[in-house]
């Protein structure tokens, strides 16, 4: 136990938790925007898998990280467009459509990987940059202020998304469309256009999350996300549809995971309890959801297609 309490180990664990939290945070923030507009996207994980693969493949072929992120963005836009057409224009049931997107992402990324790459080969990873001065703080600096650009971007997105939702007309339209689309429609706010935009934002962010995951790891393999996208959806509920809450959830999830791994490496968690400990983050999320259930209310129009009548 005492070993864990050394500052070095604690700081390394926090840094690890932040790295783990990054893809969850980006994906969950995007899903927050989508859900606030009344659209649930269960396909987040599939979009992440596809974008992760295309980011990986692009970097493998070009050694250019920026091109990799752009490839992921393109995947996100295409998948978002498909999902928007299906659920907004054709009023398809959101639950099953999202599962369709998920299965497509899982299957197609796997197929492409087998055909185009085969054996996992390492690619260039995202480089970590220290924030001047802050990263020089002994111990604390490297843990908090020495990360890759996508991690910084993820945490910067928290106030940005909160601000967009609160202080822009677009954000107001998104909230209105998610709560009472009839009201928005009656005032000339296009429900379809607003939801298209929110879905595209959500999918693009899921795609960046996929890119962040694969470019942090520097390697790809089929089903890379292991359900990360679904946890991200749970984090949206956890965070009560507020960016700061979502960030809290993502950090909690990442830090618990990192702590469990640290304790396993040190033998604090005995090997016999290893598999049970691995469930800790999921169990914690479920407990939090149960405690929160009923206290917060999802957007009223969530999962409900809009039709005029």
């Amino acid at each position: 136990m005492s070993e864990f309490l050394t500052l070095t180990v604690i700081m390394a664990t926090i840094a690890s938790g932040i790295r783990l939290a990054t893809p969850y945070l980006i994906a969950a923030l995007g899903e927050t925007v989508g859900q606030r507009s009344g659209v649930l996207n269960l396909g987040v994980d599939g979009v992440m898998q596809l974008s992760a693969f295309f980011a990986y493949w692009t970097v493998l072929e070009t050694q250019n990280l920026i091109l990799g992120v752009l490839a992921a963005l393109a995947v996100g836009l295409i998948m978002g467009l498909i999902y928007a057409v299906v659920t907004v224009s054709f009023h398809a049931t959101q639950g099953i459509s999202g599962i369709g997107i998920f299965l497509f992402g899982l299957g197609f990324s796997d197929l492409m990987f087998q055909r185009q790459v085969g054996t996992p080969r390492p690619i260039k990873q995202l480089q970590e940059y220290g924030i001047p001065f802050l990263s020089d703080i002994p111990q604390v600096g490297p843990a908090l202020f020495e990360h890759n650009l996508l991690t910084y971007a993820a945490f910067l997105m928290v106030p940005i998304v909160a601000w967009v939702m609160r202080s822009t007309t677009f954000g107001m339209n998104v909230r209105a469309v998610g709560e009472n689309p009839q009201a928005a429609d009656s005032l000339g706010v296009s429900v379809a256009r607003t939801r298209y935009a929110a879905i595209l934002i959500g999918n693009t962010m899921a795609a960046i999350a996929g890119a962040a995951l694969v470019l942090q790891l520097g390697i790809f393999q089929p089903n890379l996300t292991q359900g990360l996208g679904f946890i991200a959806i749970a984090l949206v509920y956890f965070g009560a549809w507020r960016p700061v809450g979502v960030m809290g959830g993502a950090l909690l999830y990442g830090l618990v995971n990192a702590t469990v791994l640290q304790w396993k490496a040190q033998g604090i968690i005995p090997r016999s309890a290893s598999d049970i400990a691995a469930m800790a983050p999921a169990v914690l999320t479920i407990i939090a959801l149960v405690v929160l259930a009923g206290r917060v209310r999802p957007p009223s129009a969530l999962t409900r297609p809009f039709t005029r009548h």
Partner: protein
Amino acid sequence: MNNKRKSLSIMRLLALLLSLAMVAAACGGSDDAGGGSVAESDTDLTFAIVAPSASDDLAFTQSMVDAVKALGIEPQITDGTFVVEEAASAIRGYADDGVNVVIAHGTQYGASLAEIAPDFPDTTFIWGTATDTQGLDNVFAYYPEANEGGYVNGVMAAALTNSGVIGVVGPVEAGDAVAYVNGFAKGAEAGGAEVNITYTGSFGDVALASEAAQAHLTNNADVLTGSAQMVVGAVTVATGEGVPWFGTQANQTPMGPDVVVASQVYHWEVVLEQMIEEIEGGTLGGKAYAVTLENGGLEIEYNDGFDLPDDVKAKAEETIAGIIDGSIDAGV
């Protein structure tokens, strides 16, 4: 009217789902093929393989397809059957068609095989990875003694560490992974090193494997190893930090050309050849075969790109010889 439109779009979605599921089914995999050195067999037996992922997956399924082909046999193949029921009907179909040897390449096919095999007493079924034949006398089983290569890797790791601490990243405490990890720990500890073992709880979570490796490094480990698919995440950490890595199940050199020291690889053709001999001799099953260092089914493949000191390599070869002649016990 509204309802009708709704049901139509659901039908469309279901069709989409089905086609996607088929794409998904065509993929997946775990192990890697080896390049065996066994003489071509001139058997007249006909072979079929039923396997869960694509036959060119460069992994689990391909390792068996390559092994059969290495014997000069052209098998019939049903691949991508990761739904067990589909695999079962394929296995039964080949037996019905009169194929002599049906290879059910997946632990998960065991229950189906227990139902099918008794109906075809003149057909041999080969099933793995599994350590027993479920008492069926027309079933051969195969599995790797992964602890042996683990022990050899462990001995080398102990020789390479400066800090005296070695980190191991495992998936779930089950199957080949446990044999490898335990063998590795035994070998490393015999060399005087301290071994920290983390089972992440997942066969697939690359990010967790990566952070588990980081955690080992935080705790002073300076040599790493691990087993199962998700270790690719740990290999990249090893690469990033310039820490030696030991692989298993497949030659992992392509993943970490600078840090992979050696990998334990499987050659199924060695045991397949023994099984064919038995079948031609009239015994259709009832035995489990292990690929081992001794029978050549396990092989330590060194990475030429890693500058392994000669004395360490010599120690490894010594250990291999010791395990083969029984003077070293790698059992766990």
